[in-house]
């Protein structure tokens, strides 16, 4: 969903920069305050994984492909503030070095994939985990739904940006964008659920604590268990 330069009008691209910069500042502050020591290497792994996974376009219907955004996954594992920084790093490298996504459009791309996707994913995951009370296959089910929703939400905001730029009318772009991202979101959901299941199986303590979660730690786990205060 990386917007190239030219799709957005100057005012919309500028608004993207202003809005994303305005949210990155608190993200830097909050991440510094909340990040635990064991999450330092996880932030590196997450950024590396998201970059690599984004290269792997998977086919969806009708000669179209999609790839992971990763915002929801990062937000579930590291919290929405750290996820914003990870996504911003990935998107900035992609724009600056790989010419994937425009430089003027970088602000809007950060807003769409680095702010909207993580926060929507995080909110849906939290709400659904609480609702399911720890059931749902160790976070895989809420993870799937959170990731799917984050992609659809991102596609809606992307449509709005294109419409506000006068590039295409909303009645044309919105159904088309949402229609294809409903499918791409399934891929996002499957990858996110698989990644969460992997973390649950290998490093249970890295998953966020859900108050009512009563699943036992895997054998040979870290023993210390989950600490509540890592958010």
């Amino acid at each position, binding site marked *: 969903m990386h917007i190239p330069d030219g799709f957005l009008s100057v005012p919309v691209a500028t608004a993207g920069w202003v809005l994303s910069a305005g949210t990155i500042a608190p993200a830097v502050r909050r991440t510094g*305050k909340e990040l635990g020591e064991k999450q330092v*290497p996880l*932030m590196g792994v997450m950024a*590396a994984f998201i970059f690599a996974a984004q290269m792997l376009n998977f086919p969806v219907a009708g*000669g*179209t492909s999609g790839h992971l955004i990763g915002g929801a996954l990062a937000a579930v594992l590291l919290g929405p503030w750290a996820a914003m920084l990870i996504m911003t790093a990935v998107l900035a490298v992609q724009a600056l070095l*790989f010419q994937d996504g425009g430089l003027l459009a970088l602000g809007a791309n950060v807003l769409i994939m680095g702010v909207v996707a993580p926060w929507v994913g995080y909110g849906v995951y939290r709400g659904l985990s609480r609702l399911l009370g720890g059931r749902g296959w160790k976070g895989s089910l809420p993870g799937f739904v959170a990731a799917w929703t984050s992609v659809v939400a991102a596609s809606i905001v992307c449509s709005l940006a294109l419409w506000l730029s006068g590039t295409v009318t909303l009645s044309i772009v919105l159904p088309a964008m949402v229609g294809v991202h409903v499918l791409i979101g399934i891929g996002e959901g499957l990858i996110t659920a698989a990644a969460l299941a992997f973390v649950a199986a290998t490093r249970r303590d890295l998953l966020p604590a859900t108050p009512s979660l009563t699943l036992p730690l895997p054998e040979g786990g870290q023993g210390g268990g989950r600490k509540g205060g890592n958010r």
Partner: protein
Amino acid sequence: MKRWWIVGLLIALALALLSPLASPHPDGLERVAEDKGFLETAREPLYELIPDYLFPGIADEAAATMVAGVAGTLLLFGLGYSLARLLRQQRVG
């Protein structure tokens, strides 16, 4: 923990090495832009370093993609790790 994050990084690097297998079809936004007739409003990038995830100077396309993928993956690991380290130090210090 150390072993775990090395495994995580290795998984990411393995994905990067698989990147030549990625679907070559346009992604969702590109497809919509094509279908709805605004793809041609896209402007060429101001400059090109590693366009299309092909590392320059490597003739073989699959190899060029893998090198670009591995380079980007390592760079982002370093960026993510240093950023986290920096932000934590600021708090402690």
